[in-house]
Structures are given as structure tokens and as C-alpha cells.
């Protein structure tokens, strides 16, 4: 029943491009992209509570891989290459940083995104001699939407599967208490690394799929830190520990930000900051948990 409902929902979303305007399709692509980013981020950061600000590092790496390879390889191979580059970098980064706890991990991941951006800028200026790159791919907006929708659906499906697996159980224990996890027989390094690499690969693919929309790519566009912050707020708003939480947070916030950035282009970052604070204060466990608490309180009153 539930599976049928989800399949029907997916079918409706897949047909949506035939019913909306170009502007509407643009909104759909943006919303689905953020659903994918927030869900992919939460795959690792939700259960383990390691808040990563490296989302845009991987998203940008995906976009840049496409920018570099789009004329050299057929498109499916470009996507596979992007996923492989993202996974390889996540593996190296994960091996060296997953020992860091709490705030140190947050700062490191933020630094990582900046580091990747500066390295690419340096390389482009000093070695290739150009800062910007063009992506000419024969893809329509609909193609991009369908690809992103498929990636988003795969991400939520993968998360559902992990939640029911031993890996999911191990990740939740890691999030609660790493000392207990280790003394219970859980291999901390491997558990965190698998989830981090899976999450990073999804984020990289999202960047790769979204990039043909940019046409022109340069480090400041591909590695915009706002993307990392938005992803975190969206996942937290919906509830990073729940399967549908990140998606639920991503859609309304994306629409709000679209509207704000169109109507208040200069003051829009202020709203971003206010919203961040509001989410953390009012709904630390997300909307879904907040609703449950309300319902439970309502139940008690009636009883």
C-alpha cells in the first residue's frame, strides 16, 4: 500500500514537466535538487550527528568534473567519473577527519569546501589560464529534472534500506555515544566511512546532474557556501533523523528562498540567518518530531 502510494507520487512527479511552464520546471528542478542534497546529507549526518558543511565541496566537484570532461567523454561516463572522483575524495577526507568530533568536524568540513575552491581557482589561473568553463551538453531541462528526480528517489530508497540494515543501527549508536558503540563491537571508522562516502557520492552526482543548467561554471558559482548552509537548515527543519524529514524541509524552504531572493535580493542573507536561528531554537529535532510532540501533548490533554 505504502509502496504503491510512493510509486504513484513518483509517477505524478515524473509527469509534472508536461503540465508546467518553463519557470515552473525551473522551480521543480531546484526543489528536487535540494530534496536530493538534504536527503543525501542526512544519510550520514542525520544518524551520526556529524554536522558537515562540505556539501558544496562535493556538489562543486561534481559540477567541475562535468565542466572538465563534458566534451571528452560520453555523458554517462562523465557522470560515472564524477561519482568516482567524489567517492575517492570522500574516502581520503573521511579517513583523515572522521576522528574529529563535534565542532572540529564542522569547521574542518567548512574549510574543506573553501580549500577545494581555492585549489581549483589556483589551478585554473596558473595552469590552464582560464577561470571559467562552459558546459555544452545536449540536455533539455526535462532531462535534467528526470535525472535529478531519479537520484533523489534513489537517495531516499537507499536511506530507507540503510535504516533497516545493521549499518543503520550502527550509525544511530555512533550518533548517541561512540564509546559505547566501540565497546559493543562496532567498527567506528568503517561504519562512519561507508556512510560518509555514500553521502558524498550522492552530493557529487547532484552537482554533476545540475551543472548543465549553469552553462558557465567558475569556482565562485560551483562552490557557493550558501548551498551547504541551506542543505543543513532544510534537513534540520524537516528532521535529519527521519526518512522523509529532509525532503519535507527542503521543498518549502527552497520556495521561500526563491521568493525572497527574487523580491529582496540585497537583504535576503539576513532572512537566511534569522531562519537558521529560528529552526535551531524552535524545532531542534525537526518539524516531524515537533508535530509528534504536539500530538502526544494533545492526547494527554484529552486523556
Amino acid at each position, binding site marked *: 500500500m505504502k509502496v504503491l502510494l510512493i510509486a504513484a507520487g513518483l509517477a505524478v512527479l515524473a509527469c509534472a514537466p508536461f503540465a508546467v511552464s518553463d519557470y515552473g520546471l525551473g522551480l521543480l528542478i531546484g526543489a528536487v535538487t535540494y530534496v536530493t542534497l538534504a536527503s543525501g546529507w542526512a544519510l550520514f549526518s542525520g544518524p551520526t550527528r556529524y554536522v558537515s558543511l562540505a556539501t558544496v565541496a562535493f556538489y562543486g566537484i561534481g559540477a567541475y568534473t562535468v565542466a572538465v570532461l563534458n566534451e571528452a567523454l560520453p555523458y554517462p561516463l562523465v557522470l560515472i567519473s564524477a561519482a568516482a572522483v567524489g567517492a575517492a575524495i570522500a574516502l581520503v577526507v573521511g579517513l583523515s577527519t572522521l576522528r574529529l568530533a563535534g565542532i572540529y568536524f564542522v569547521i574542518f568540513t567548512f574549510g574543506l569546501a573553501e580549500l577545494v575552491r581555492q585549489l581549483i581557482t589556483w589551478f585554473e589561473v596558473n595552469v590552464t589560464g582560464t577561470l571559467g568553463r562552459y558546459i555544452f551538453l545536449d540536455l533539455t531541462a526535462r532531462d535534467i529534472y528526470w535525472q535529478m528526480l531519479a537520484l533523489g528517489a534513489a537517495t531516499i530508497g537507499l536511506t530507507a534500506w540503510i535504516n533497516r540494515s*545493521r549499518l543503520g*543501527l*550502527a550509525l*544511530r*549508536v555512533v*550518533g*548517541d*555515544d561512540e*564509546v*559505547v*558503540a*566501540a*565497546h*559493543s*563491537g*562496532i*567498527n*567506528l571508522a568503517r561504519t562512519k566511512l561507508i556512510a560518509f562516502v555514500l553521502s558524498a557520492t550522492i552530493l557529487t552526482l547532484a552537482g554533476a546532474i545540475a551543472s548543465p543548467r549553469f552553462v558557465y561554471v567558475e569556482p565562485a558559482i560551483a562552490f557557493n557556501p550558501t548551498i551547504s548552509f541551506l542543505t543543513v537548515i532544510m534537513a534540520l527543519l524537516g528532521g535529519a533523523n527521519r526518512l522523509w524529514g529532509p525532503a519535507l524541509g527542503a521543498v518549502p524552504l527552497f520556495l521561500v528562498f526563491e521568493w525572497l531572493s527574487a523580491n529582496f535580493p540585497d537583504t535576503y542573507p539576513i532572512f537566511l540567518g534569522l531562519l537558521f536561528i529560528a529552526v535551531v531554537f524552535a524545532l531542534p529535532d525537526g518539524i516531524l518530531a515537533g508535530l509528534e510532540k504536539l500530538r502526544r501533548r494533545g492526547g494527554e490533554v484529552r486523556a
Partner: protein
Amino acid sequence: MTLLAIDGATKKFDGLTAVNEVSFGLEAGEIVGLLGPNGSGKTTLINLVSGELAVTAGSISLNGQRLTGRRRDQIARAGIARTFQLVRILPSLTLIENVTIPAVFGPGRRTVAEAQEVALEALKQVGLSEMATASAADLTYIDQKRLELARALASEPKVLLLDEWLAGLNPTELAEGIALIRSLKESGITILMVEHIMEAVRALCPRVVVMNSGRLIADEATETALRDPHVIAAYLGEGADA
């Protein structure tokens, strides 16, 4: 046959030697008390055995299999389970989930379905089976301690390390706690317990090892140790008129 062998275990923190060439063994099925005044290195020794800390020198082995140099999770899978001096539960999980985890990831490597049965049995043993689906965060202190013990038991360990598991209990709870550990003894498990409550040590441990300033100063029958002038001096200070 010696199940757990500690051989010359030493731990240095910068200038301080917290555990100094400690050697003793546990026979299978034994319950041994680990005594000593505060700061004598008891918890550090427990941390060395469970892999929370790495030894500076010496070796620790289980059933002839070397544990030193291995990670905490590998040591847990080899069959060493522990509780913590300051209780550590998993607050966002239910009781049954808390206890299922070591059954899944510990030495038994059980499937989740099997592990839940083991976990329920462990919860029954400590008297918490009726609250199996409650959240661990809602438990009282004594029940958190019970939960921690159930979690250690559910890993089906060869050796159980209890770090002041009976501390902080009222007299009724203490009597229950002692009866609970005694019931474990009958199941054939081997236990090393750090304990300050002499009533419990007398009731449960036929043998004790005593530490002072990182060194082992006694390894003998409990009644002998508690009359041993070295042991009394360690607790009351040198020159105390015992």
C-alpha cells in the same frame, strides 16, 4: 585454566605511571574483586583490558589470544564486555534497542531477529523486560545501571568487567544488585569487578586483587586480604594503627 591473563600491564601518562607492571589472571567462571583506594589505577586497568586505553608496556590476552594493540571493537568481539563508572546508556534508543546492539555487533554476530531474543532474555535477567519498548532516556538511575548490565550481558561475553556497578545504590537496591550478580555467577560467566562496597565484595568475590598507586599489592583470598596489613595501610594510610 587461565581465561584472562594480564602480564606486566603498564600505563604511563606523561610523568605519571597509573598502572605499574600489574600481573594476574582470571580463571574461567571466577568472580574477582579489584580493590584499592581512589586513584590507585583500577579504572585505568579496566580501560586497558577493554582497549579504551592502550598499554605502554606489557600484554593482556584472552584464552591465549593477544588483546593488546587491538581496537576496542575487536576486543569486544573477542568476548570482553564492560560497564562504565559513570553510566553510559544510549538515550535516543529504546531499552530493547540498547541491548540488541551488542548482540548484533558483539562476539555472537547475531542477526537482528536473533539478537532481539537475546536482548529480551538479558532484560528479563535484570528485571527490565516489561519496559522493553520504553525510551532509555526516561529511566531512573538504578534502572540505567540495570540496562547497562543487560547490554553487557547481551553481548554474551567471556569476561565481564564491572566498574563500580553497585555504587550509588540504596540498601534495598544493593541487596538486589548483589543477588543479580550472584545469579550471573551461576551462568558460568567470568567477572572482574571494581568495587568499594566491602559487603558486596565479601558476598560475591572469593578472591580479590588489590592495587595501590598503580601497583598490585595483594592477590589472595578475600578474607586474608581484608586482614592484610599492606592492604589496610593502603586504605587508611601508612602508619595507621590497624
